[in-house]
């Protein structure tokens, strides 16, 4: 088992901060992309950690020792996120989220802008994906879960999940392309690459 489990089992209060540090980025990313907004994502991630803490505080050390923390925390996060997701809430990706997109220091500023614009469009598409596909797609391709882990987290068969991930990715790709075919607000200056691609 992970040495973190051992430390959590031995001294939960002292080690909990390390657990948060180790999982906050991936859980926050999942929450933000699942909910489609960052304000709720912070609340949801915080609540998931607090629930995890309270659960562990009630467990005997042996049980904490044997926890598979990654999928266990993910399961809690998705439960909290599903309770929070209200149909009346607009699924918008705020500028705030774009500002916190992990920056690659070697990247040129224009490339970073392009990447943010593309990410904004993808984020909006992911957030509008039907929930049955959204969780599997995010777990697989954002969080990097195995199908075995996903089966445990979502309570669905691996074969079902593979089909749902495949279908979800197809829907996203089709939606992105459909979006691309719409006339752009202002045609950018043609680049040599563009002429090669477009007849």
């Amino acid at each position, binding site marked *: 088992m992970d040495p973190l489990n051992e430390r959590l089992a031995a001294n939960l*209060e002292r080690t*909990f*901060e390390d657990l*948060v*540090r180790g999982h*906050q*980025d*991936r*859980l*926050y*990313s999942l929450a*933000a*992309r699942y909910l489609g907004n*960052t304000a709720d994502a*912070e609340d949801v*991630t*915080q*609540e998931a*950690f*607090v629930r995890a*803490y*309270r659960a562990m505080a009630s467990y005997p050390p042996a049980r904490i020792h044997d926890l598979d923390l990654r999928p266990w925390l993910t399961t809690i996060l998705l439960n909290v996120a599903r309770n929070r997701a209200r149909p009346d809430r607009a699924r918008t990706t705020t500028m705030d*989220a774009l500002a*916190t*997109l*992990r920056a690659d220091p070697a990247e040129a500023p224009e*490339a970073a802008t*392009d*990447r943010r*614009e*593309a*990410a904004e*469009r*993808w*984020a909006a598409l*992911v957030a509008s994906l039907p929930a049955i596909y959204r969780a599997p*797609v*995010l777990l697989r*391709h*954002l969080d*990097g879960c195995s199908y075995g882990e996903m089966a445990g987290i979502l309570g669905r068969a691996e074969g079902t999940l593979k089909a749902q991930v495949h279908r979800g*990715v*197809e829907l*996203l*790709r089709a939606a*992105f*392309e459909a*979006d*691309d075919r719409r006339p*752009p607000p202002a045609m*950018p200056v043609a*680049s040599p*690459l*563009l002429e090669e*691609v477009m007849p």
Partner: protein
Amino acid sequence: MNPTSAVGMTARLGSADGTEAAIAALALAAPSSLLPGTMVAAGLADGYVEVDAPVGPIYLAFNPTGVSAVSRAGDQLAFERWFAAEIGRPLHRVRSLPPRLGAAIARRLAGDRSGGLRVDLRGRSDFERAVLEKALEIPRGEVRPYGWIAAEIGRPRAVRAVGTALGHNPIPLLIPCHRVVRSDGTIGEYSLGGPAAKRVILEAEGVDLRELEALARDGTRFIGSDATAVFCLPTCRHARRIHARHRVAFGTLSETERAGYRPCRVCRPASAAAA
């Protein structure tokens, strides 16, 4: 939309891999407020904020038990050092107070003692807790002598220890130790900025300090009404309602007894005679 976007381009070319890469690129870094907020919400650390008070900006710490500290420390670092020395629990600055706690504090500062504001006095001795909880009962606009607290908590001879406990009040302003004054009419020390700050706060709360000091110079410790034969401490809201022509001044408890007056049930002035 930008045709030179690498992610957009691969997806346009119809690759599922491009879509997968685009999803993977949606990873975010958690905001820096997430960790502190989580530790505070889990009860593993106290949170603190800077708030405006009558004496200037103060730092206010809290946890799920209630408000744990109020300090006028010069800056953030000074406050964190003070908290580490005085309280000793982990501490994180947070963006804002929990809404309910914020509302309860605002009500309390406005003079509403109807409850709802919880304080965390863990780590204080039973005696200190008794003193501080008694101080919580003193209404805005009124003051009580140190001896009154001592008598009210059943330790009438511990007047000096009451002063020490109030001097170490970890939650000044909200636990109104500034409403406890000397029986000789001087207002006494104050941990949140000395006697000058104490005056500012008491006057802001509507206490007429000049009148209080004048009464003390005359040797007046109780005010009675010859219409009701009830006597009060001078700042008691019932004493302030007594019409000038019915006001009777007393210097000692035995004078009130001889005159046949009974003590007010609200300010319980007999407790003050212990000092």
